[in-house]
């Protein structure tokens, strides 16, 4: 059963197993965030809300919000903006992007899939492009809380696999909580509805079964 804790709640005496979302004081583990306790491997508190903070290796969906040579400034649904260097773009071609022509490659408002290459102590975030980086036309982009992303993926991908199969859509979930769905109009709408349903009920048990039931009843 899920155990909800608030900041300052005592969780355990096992200080050596303290993990994310907890802190240790006088050898005891306390909750640092409002969330749900998970003590399968280490004692963690999975937050129910909060802002996304990029870490190295995350795959995110970002929006170009500013061009400032030689960087594109990218909004990644976080308090911190990310930047993408022009060299990321031309790595394989032997050309240089000239000042003033960056907009031809990526313009304001364009959406990209990128990997967080590095985050420094000043919280400057550097992005690297993925192979299939540009989000083309068609499809939907929705933003959910990044804390709900693991639930949307499900244990070893069970939830998202089922969703992809039953909705017959292409679904891409980025670590920062942005979800890109592509498929036929009706199928996209259905997938979108389910993603929002999962976000709303992320903390409940038996969700995979309920989603499955919901999708089956919709098909009939």
């Amino acid at each position, binding site marked *: *059963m*899920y155990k*909800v*804790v*608030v*900041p*300052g*709640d005592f969780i355990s005496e096992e200080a050596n197993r303290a993990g994310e*979302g907890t*802190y240790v*004081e006088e050898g005891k583990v*306390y909750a*640092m*965030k*409002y*969330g*749900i306790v998970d003590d399968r491997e280490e004692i963690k508190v999975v*937050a*129910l*809300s*909060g*802002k996304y*903070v990029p870490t190295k290796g995350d795959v995110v969906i970002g929006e170009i919000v500013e061009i400032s040579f030689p960087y594109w400034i990218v909004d990644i649904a976080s*308090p*911190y*903006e990310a930047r993408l260097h022009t060299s990321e773009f031309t790595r394989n071609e032997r050309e240089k992007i000239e000042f003033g022509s960056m907009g031809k490659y990526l313009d304001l408002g364009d959406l990209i899939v990128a990997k967080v290459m590095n985050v420094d102590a*000043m*919280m400057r975030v550097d992005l690297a492009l993925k192979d299939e980086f540009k989000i083309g036309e068609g499809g939907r982009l929705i933003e959910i809380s990044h*804390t709900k992303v693991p639930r949307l993926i499900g244990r070893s991908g069970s939830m998202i696999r089922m969703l992809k199969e039953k909705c017959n859509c292409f679904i891409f979930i980025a670590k920062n909580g942005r979800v890109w769905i592509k498929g036929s109009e009706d199928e996209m709408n259905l997938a979108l509805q389910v993603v929002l349903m999962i976000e709303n*009920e992320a*903390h*409940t*048990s*038996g*969700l995979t*079964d*309920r989603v499955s039931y919901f999708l089956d009843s919709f098909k009939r």
Partner: protein
Amino acid sequence: MKEGEKEIELIKKGKRLDGRGFEELRPIKIEVGVLKRADGSCYFEMGDNKVMAAVYGPREMHPRHFQDAKMAVVKYRYNMAPFSVDDRKRPGPDRRSVEISKVSREAFDPVIIKEYYPKTAIDVYVEILQSDAGTRTAGINAASVALADAGIPMKDMVSSVAVGKIGGEVVLDLSGMEDNYGEADMPVAMVARTNTITLLQMDGNFKKEEFERGLKLAMDACHKIYELQRTALIERYSKSVGEGEGEE
């Protein structure tokens, strides 16, 4: 207020004007997550005090030169709505609300773990919709719940209540009349788990023994308020967990 004391009898037959005992809190109501567009929010009622707290962030700090490279900056705004008091209050910050904002912000200093979000701002807005003495304590209670709701990392929750002296008696949680015609008013904010006092102000005079008794009253009441805050937060999610029970 020697004259006022005699004119208005604040204690009748061992009861206060609103029928409360000396050590009794006003009824408290807490609702979590009432504002959809805020990252965390709380509506808090304490007797006739009605307070709304909203937390935004951590978000990018503007203007940039106020950023702290090592930690988040907490901004706290206590504001009274013009209609919150009997005579219309002139809108906008004044000497009083600027001071209250400052001390309330500092009441959260020991609990918010600011190092997790360098260069950002955490905005706390506390709006007093209706006031009846002890609004800063109600505001702190509301802000504490709203901060937790926003997922801000904190070591503990903060709870707050005022004590005062009316008709020579030390009483808990003054109401408006008691505040106006009483002899002393002392708001206290505290971390319930560790009994750490994070705000202590006093208006009026207490004798040493009265102060000690008042502080003890306030600390005991903070524990009660803490339980209510905690219950409100936990119920928000356990209710819907219950619906899905038995399936897994």
